[in-house]
């Protein structure tokens, strides 16, 4: 988790300092007039805000921090599953080694 310090800081700072302007596709959709066809995405943290904290900057910062942790945890979970599925690792072996000579 120590290695997540920088990304977590970036996510927190983004809540306070990131540009609020519509980005890329969003901006094109507004200029060309088809932005209205977009259906608002649903999700527990939709719009990068914590529901009970409203649309404040603090709420955006916390939502970013939570998302960063979720993204990390997906792969942490994959490691857990891989260990169970593939069994214990062997100290002397490295990736790609194929000692198939019995």
């Amino acid at each position, binding site marked *: 988790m120590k290695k997540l310090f920088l990304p977590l800081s970036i996510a927190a700072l983004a809540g306070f300092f990131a540009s609020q302007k519509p980005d890329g596709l969003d901006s094109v959709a507004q200029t060309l007039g088809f932005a209205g066809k977009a*259906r608002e995405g649903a999700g527990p943290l939709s719009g990068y805000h914590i529901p009970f904290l409203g649309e404040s900057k603090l709420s955006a910062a916390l939502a970013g921090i939570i998302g960063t942790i979720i993204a990390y945890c997906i792969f942490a979970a994959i490691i857990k599953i891989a260990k169970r599925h593939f069994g214990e690792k062997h100290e002397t072996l490295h990736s790609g080694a194929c000692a198939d000579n019995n």
Partner: protein
Amino acid sequence: MVMHIPDGFLDHKTSAGLMGAAAAILGFSFAKVASAVTALVPQRVLAAAGNALGNVQTAAKRVLTEDGEKKLRGMAVIAGWIFAAQTFNFPISSGTSGHLLGGVFAAVLLGPFEGATVIAAVLAVQAVFFGDGGKMALGANIINMAVIGALGGYALFSGFNRFLSKMNSAALAAWASVVIAAAACSMEIGYSGTIEFSKVFPAMVKTHCLIGIVEAFITVAALKYYEKRPL
């Protein structure tokens, strides 16, 4: 959101087709990653190590290697990085902002299939938890940003890298991958009949030519940062 397609911009045929394509390519990437982080070990070795004494008969067994676990830990950290970086929108012109996509960064640092897997995971988190990018459009977004952005970006990088330095190749590939992904995105939206292709294509490409420049700078800075430290 730079090019995260929301639901409503694609027709069902397009989103279903791209979902299928994304599933097939991601499945292949998962298999590649799985074989990269594991090794085939003959049972006799395991028996000697005190494991699986009972099945010496079976020929070989796959195990997660130490390097493999390290690689997966690196993917976890980079997934966190990319999610965080994508929340940081920077202004690119009056009224428009952009953020990092990170496909080339992840693919050059971790490998093409690892990079594509990481980007796809981040896109899934954004769609499911944050409503950023539609759930129906997730396939299209994975094709644009993980397949074109990371796998395609890595192909461009290795092509450039035959003539140019690592950092210059990464910068060029980062810029090009964003522009090509934006072109693909406008094709999908145009094909769905949401708006004329002739209108959305030039607008998307023009905007993302600018966003791509920032992508190139951040990609090089992030790769330089990780040149000196282990993941």
